[in-house]
C-alpha cells in the first residue's frame, strides 16, 4: 500500500544492503547515580561550590537553632502575666501563656463564648459537604461543588448571624440545609450502592420499570421531602443574634476570603469571556471593570466602599460594614482572576476552538467543554496563587475597623496582663497563615500533577 509516496526503494537495489545493528545501551557512570552521586555533583563539585555549601549549612544551623531555642528550649509555658515570663527568662525565650490565653479570641474574635459552637458546627458541615468531592466513588461531584458554593453560604450566614428570620430568609436557609441533606444522602448512596440518591429512591419504591416522567416526578418528590424536613429543622432553630462587630480572628479571615474565593473564580471566568467577546459593549464594560479595579489598591477600594457607598444608597438603607468589606474584596479579586483566566484562554491554540466548531459545537459548548477545562488547568498555579494572595490580603480589612486574625494578634499586646506581648502572637499567627497558605500551594501542586498525567506538551 505504501507506493503512495512517489520515489523510494527501487533505485538502491543494484548494491546489496549492509545490515545496521544498533549498539546496546550502557548504564550511566556510577559516580553520577544515587544520593552520593547527586550530592557530589550538586554540592561539592568544586572547591568554591563546597565552600558555599558549607557556608549555607552553617547559616541554616545558626538560624534554626536560634528559633528553636527561643520558641521551645527557653520558652515559658506557665505564667499568669508577661511580668512573670520576664522574671523567669527575660527576653531570651518566648512567653506562650499569653498566646494560649488568647487563642479563643485569635480564632473567634469577640464572638460570645457560649455561641462558639455555631461556628464549629458550620465548619463541620463545610468539611462534611466538601469531603465527597475527594471520594472516587462519588459521581455527582459537579452538583455537590456547585451546591457548596451557592447554597452553603445561606446556611452558614444564619449559623453565624442568627436572629430573626422572615419567611424568605427561612426558605433560603432551608434550601442550604436541604442541599446539605441531599449531599449527605447522595454521597452515602453512591458509596454504598453506586446509585445516586434519586435513583436509589426510585429503585427502593419499586418504580425502576416505570416511565421516565414518572421517575422524574418521584425524584422531585424525594427532593421536596428533603426540603420540607429542612424547613422543619430551620423553623425549630432559634439562634440568638450576634452582631458582625463581634466577629473576628481567624473566623472572620476565613469568612471574608471564603466569599472572595468562591465569588472570584466564576466572576473572573465571566469577565474574561466578556473581555474577549466580539460584542463591543460587553467587551468594553468588562475591560473597564477589570482595569478600574486592578489599577486601584485594595486598601483604597475598602475605604471607598466603607465611606462612599453609604452616600450613594438611599437614606435609611444601611449596608453592614462586613458586607461592604466582602463586596470590595470580591470585586477586587474577580478583576485579578479575570486577567489570570484570560491568560489561560490565550494559551489555548485557536485550532482547539476550530476543531470543536467544525464538529458542530456552538460557542458555549466549545468554551465550556474544550477551551475552559484546558485554560483552567494550565492556570492552576496562578489561580491558587491568587487565592493565597487573597487570603493574606484580608488583613487589610483591619483598616475599616474589622478585627481579623492580624488585628486580634495585635490586641494581645494591649491586654493589661500581657502588655507589650507582640512577638509571640505574631509568631503564632504567622504559623497559622503559613499552614493555610502552604496547604493550598501543596494541594495545587498535587492537583496539577494529577490532572496533567500523560498530557504534557
Amino acid at each position: 500500500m505504501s507506493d503512495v509516496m512517489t520515489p523510494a526503494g527501487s533505485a538502491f537495489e543494484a548494491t546489496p544492503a549492509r545490515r545496521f545493528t544498533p549498539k546496546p545501551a550502557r548504564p550511566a557512570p556510577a559516580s553520577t547515580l544515587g544520593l552520593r552521586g547527586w550530592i557530589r555533583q550538586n554540592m561539592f563539585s568544586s572547591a568554591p561550590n563546597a565552600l558555599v555549601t558549607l557556608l549555607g549549612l552553617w547559616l541554616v544551623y545558626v538560624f534554626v537553632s536560634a528559633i528553636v531555642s527561643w520558641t521551645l528550649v527557653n520558652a515559658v509555658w506557665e505564667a499568669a502575666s508577661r511580668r512573670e515570663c520576664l522574671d523567669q527568662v527575660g527576653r531570651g525565650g518566648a512567653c506562650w501563656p499569653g498566646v494560649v490565653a488568647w487563642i479563643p479570641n485569635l480564632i473567634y474574635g469577640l464572638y460570645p463564648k457560649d455561641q462558639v459552637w455555631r461556628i464549629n458546627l458550620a465548619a463541620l458541615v463545610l468539611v462534611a459537604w466538601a469531603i465527597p468531592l475527594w471520594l472516587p466513588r462519588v459521581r455527582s461531584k459537579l452538583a455537590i461543588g456547585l451546591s457548596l458554593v451557592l447554597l452553603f453560604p445561606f446556611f452558614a450566614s444564619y449559623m453565624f448571624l442568627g436572629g430573626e428570620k422572615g419567611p424568605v430568609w427561612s426558605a433560603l436557609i432551608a434550601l442550604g440545609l436541604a442541599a446539605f441533606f441531599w449531599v449527605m444522602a447522595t454521597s452515602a448512596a453512591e458509596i454504598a450502592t453506586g446509585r445516586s440518591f434519586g435513583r436509589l429512591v426510585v429503585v427502593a419504591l419499586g418504580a425502576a420499570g416505570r416511565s421516565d416522567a414518572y421517575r422524574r416526578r418521584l425524584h422531585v418528590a424525594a427532593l421536596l421531602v428533603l426540603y420540607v424536613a429542612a424547613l422543619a429543622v430551620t423553623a425549630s432553630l432559634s439562634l440568638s443574634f450576634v452582631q458582625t462587630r463581634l466577629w473576628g480572628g481567624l473566623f472572620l479571615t476565613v469568612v471574608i476570603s471564603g466569599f472572595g474565593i468562591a465569588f472570584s473564580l466564576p466572576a473572573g471566568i465571566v469577565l474574561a469571556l466578556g473581555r474577549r467577546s466580539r460584542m463591543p459593549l460587553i467587551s468594553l464594560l468588562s475591560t473597564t471593570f477589570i482595569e478600574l479595579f486592578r489599577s486601584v489598591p485594595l486598601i483604597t477600594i475598602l475605604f471607598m466602599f466603607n465611606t462612599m457607598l453609604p452616600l450613594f444608597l438611599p437614606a435609611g438603607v444601611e449596608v453592614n460594614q462586613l458586607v461592604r468589606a466582602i463586596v470590595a474584596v470580591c470585586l477586587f479579586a474577580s478583576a485579578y482572576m479575570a486577567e489570570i483566566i484570560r491568560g489561560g484562554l490565550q494559551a489555548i491554540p485557536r485550532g482547539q476552538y476550530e476543531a470543536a466548531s467544525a464538529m458542530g459545537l456552538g460557542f458555549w459548548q466549545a468554551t465550556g467543554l474544550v477551551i475552559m477545562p484546558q485554560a483552567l488547568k494550565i492556570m492552576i498555579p496562578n489561580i491558587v496563587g491568587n487565592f493565597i494572595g487573597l487570603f493574606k490580603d484580608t488583613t487589610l480589612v483591619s483598616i475599616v475597623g474589622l478585627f481579623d486574625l492580624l488585628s486580634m494578634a495585635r490586641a494581645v499586646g494591649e491586654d493589661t496582663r500581657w502588655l507589650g506581648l507582640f512577638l509571640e502572637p505574631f509568631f503564632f499567627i504567622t504559623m497559622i497563615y503559613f499552614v493555610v497558605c502552604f496547604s493550598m500551594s501543596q494541594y495545587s501542586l498535587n492537583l496539577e500533577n494529577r490532572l496533567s498525567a500523560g498530557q504534557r506538551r
Partner: protein
Amino acid sequence: MTAPAAATPPPIELIGLNKWFGSFHVLKDIDLRVREGERIVVCGPSGSGKSTLIRCINQLEKNQEGTVRIHGRAYGASARENDAIRRDIGMVFQSFNLFPHLTVLENCTFALTWVKQTPKREAEALAMEFLTRVRIPEQARKFPLQLSGGQQQRVAIARALCVRPRIMLFDEPTSSLDPEMINEVLDTMVELAQSGMTMVVVSHEMGFARKVADRVIFMDQGEIVEEAAPEAFFTAPQFDRTRLFLNQILHG
C-alpha cells in the same frame, strides 16, 4: 466538465465566492461544484488561498460574497442552521487539533456525546470501530500527546469519521508530520477514498493525488488557475504558472 444538475443537489457547491482578510483579497470569484463521491486535491503555493477555500466549505472562515451550499442547503440562515449543516462535514487539520485533556477514545466520542446525544456505550463502540479502521484501537485509553504525530493524525481522522459525515475535508494533513509517518496517514486516506467518501484534500502529496484524485485543482493568488483529472494535470498542464509550480515540487 461537470455533470448536468441531477435530481439530488451536489454535496458542495461554491458560487461566486469572494473573501477578504481586512483589505487583502484572499479568494477571488471561486466557482466549484463537487459531485457525490468525488475526490478533489487542491494544491498551490502558500498564500494561494487553498486553506481558506476549504475552510469556507465548513464556514470556519466566512466569505463576504458568494454562496456556499452543502447538499443544497446554503449557510447563513442562522447560527443553529450553520451548525446543523456543518455536522455533515468532517475536518482534519494540519496540526491535528486533538483535545489534549481527553483520551483518544473521549476525543472520538466527544461529538457523538455532545452534538448527537448518543448514549455512552453506543458512542464508544462506534469510536472503537473507527479507531480499528485507522489501525490504532490499542491506543484508545492514552492521551493524544502520548502518541506519535502520525498516530495523532489517524486519531483525528477517526474522530472526524465518528459522526458519519458525508463529506471530509483535509487541510494539509501530512504537512506537520515527520517523513517516516506520512505514509501511515496517506494509507488511511487512500482507504477512505476507496470507500466512496466525498473528499476535498489540500495537499502537496502528488503521489496521493495521482493515485486517488478525480480532479486536481491548482490555485494561485486566490484564484483557481487550473483544474483537471490527475493524468492530464500532471502530464499536460495548460498554464505556465502550473508548470512552474509542478517543476518546483516534483523536481525541487
